[in-house]
């Protein structure tokens, strides 16, 4: 479970998040909807610990993590532009979190194969990430974030930059994967149709006055 309590954040005098509170239940997929500039990405980064809020609390599985550094928060984040590690192959990317958690090699390889299968990329382990198509890269990013079984998965506009067809297909697929793995997820988007189709519940962030 993820609880965001009364989070406020401003950049250079502009308040982008004004006393925001939200709760995401276990296994729930919540879409965070808002126009660009509404602070959705910032909220995700605060949950991940990549930014610290001016005010407010973040709790994951009941634990107050507001002051906990990112690598000890047990969150996964799918970046808008994937951020795959260019010097590692597909398996090296997907297995990265397991490596950091000290999972032994054999077990790691098994889990990587399992995840590649899950996202429809069985056999892609040895590929260079720079050779992947847009859709494939998104799948690898998802598999990588899911691999360590995070308590909360954060997706930051995970389907931007795909053509309509692929976008719709992947949206259904990813939503299915989140359900089948019972993942607690926050899905940021500015697209109401996407929000409605993938999420159990939609939270709308108000536009920011500037």
């Amino acid at each position: 479970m993820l609880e965001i309590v009364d989070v406020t954040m401003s950049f250079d005098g502009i308040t982008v998040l004004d006393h925001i509170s939200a709760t995401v239940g276990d296994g729930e997929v919540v879409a965070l909807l808002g126009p660009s500039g509404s602070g959705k990405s910032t909220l995700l980064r605060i949950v991940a610990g990549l930014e610290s809020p001016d005010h407010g609390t973040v709790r994951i599985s009941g634990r107050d993590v507001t002051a906990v550094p990112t690598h000890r928060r047990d969150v996964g984040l799918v970046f808008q532009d994937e951020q795959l590690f260019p010097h590692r192959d597909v398996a090296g990317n997907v297995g990265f979190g397991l490596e950091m958690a000290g999972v032994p090699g054999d077990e790691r390889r098994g889990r990587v194969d399992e995840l590649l299968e899950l996202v429809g990329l069985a056999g892609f382990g040895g590929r260079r990430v720079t050779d992947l198509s847009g859709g494939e890269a998104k799948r690898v990013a998802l598999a990588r974030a899911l691999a360590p079984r995070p308590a909360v998965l954060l997706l930051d506009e995970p389907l931007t930059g795909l053509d309509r067809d692929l976008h719709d297909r992947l949206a259904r697929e990813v939503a299915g994967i989140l359900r089948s793995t019972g993942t607690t997820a926050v899905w940021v988007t500015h697209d109401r149709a996407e929000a409605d189709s993938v999420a159990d519940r939609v939270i709308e962030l108000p536009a920011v006055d500037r």
Partner: protein
Amino acid sequence: MLLALAAVPVVFLLVFYAWPFATLLERAISTDAITTTLSRRRTWSVAWFTLWQATASTALTLLVGFLPAYVIARYRFAGRRLLVGLLTSVFVLPTVVVGAALLAVLPESLERGVWAILAAHVIFNLAVVVRVVGVTWEHLPTDLEAAAATLGASPWQVVRTITLPLLRPALTAAGSIVFLFTFTSFGVIRILGTAGTATIEVEIWRRATQLGDIGDAAVLTVLQLVVLAAVLGWATTSQRRHGRALAIRPVAARARPRTTRQRVLVGTTALATAAVVMLPLGALVMRSFRGSDGFSSAAWRNLGRAEVRPGIRLGVDPLDALVRSLQTAAWATLFAVVIGALAALAIAATGRTGRLLDAGVMLPIGTSAVTIGFGMLITFDTAPFDWRASWWLVPVGHALVAVPFVVRTTLTVLRSVEPRLLEAAATLGAAPTRAWRAVVLPNLWRPLTVAAGLATAISLGEFGATSFLSRSGAETMPIAIERLLGRTGTLLQAQGFALASILAAATIVAVLAVELAGRSGDTPTFGPGAGAGDRTDRRDRARDR
């Protein structure tokens, strides 16, 4: 037309580069010379010293430069650009000036010898690490590190598994540049070296000009070339192996330091780096005002007087050297710009043959200035090619060193001209030359100005080739500085420091002019990792948040 364009640079290269080089090889490839040189103990101790001081200098420079590179690439802070500018100006300072500055700042017990040499090499080459590594670093998306953190990597693990592997090609590149520079170190060592601390370059000079042992010097030159070729080969293959196609990305957003820890890190790193660079230069100026008892401006007042005491002349006239240097620089700049521009035009206009000329023009950059000067010295010494007394030989030597820079600056711009613009001009009815004049020519003035500034700076500080070619009584500034600092006597030393201060100022002015000319356009100026993307600072900050 094209052929005529290419003819001038080709002839220039053949006469002043290829021929001396061939002469050098011919002198070296004699069993006699090879056996005597290689059996000499001194040869091996010199080779060993050259190798280990270069290795140590490289390792130290990478180590010292790592933190400044990080801070400059990743943070926004007051004086950031100033710091980069400062490091770059030190990098373009003449080697004798850097040597003189270290001589000025170090306590007497340390002022000559290995430690002084290593310190000079580190300060000199910091800019290479900061700029070459920094350029890669600032293009590494910070989110890549953020991604690793969300996957459970601690800050140290992020550095080990993400940052270092991705910086590796840049570290190799910076390391090999520093290694090449320090392996062929000449000016710094002539000023700061002792009998036991000679590099191969210095030994070549000593054998050729002090002992008149041409064969020995030629063998050493070839020995050095072999080592350099090996290092270059290794660096190229290693970079190809580890270089990865990092998509070209905008500069990652630089953050203002936020936490106290970040502020302390950025503050101390910036201040310490600035201090390391500023102190020697400050000391240089201070020392020029030192008389036998305290402060004295005697050195400056007596710059134009060759007589130290009535009737005692030293053969070095500081003011005369200054004038000589300016004249030499003017001619060298003219030669280099004309030849370099013609070469660039010919290279850009032709396909495969152009590439050959391109490679030929770049050769002098891979050849040390000492080799160039030495080759010219032993080639142009017999009639009808006895040109040693000609006023133009020194400028030609300088031009040879500067031409590769002129070609690179000009060629980048020539190649970046969108060919479709020419096609557009053609469809609008412009004949080829007319189209060229309308589309390409206006873009050429800026790189040529930049190139001229570069050539001037190079010529003003050139020491390696000049050490062989300059005649006594016609010294350029660097030569005069080395002479003066090598003498005892407070006044002479102070004059040496004064002259070094003037040379430093002149070089920095030339280089600033280059920066200003290059700034408003996209012309990559000089300096390691030129064209570093300082301009894109703010672009990426306006992302969705």
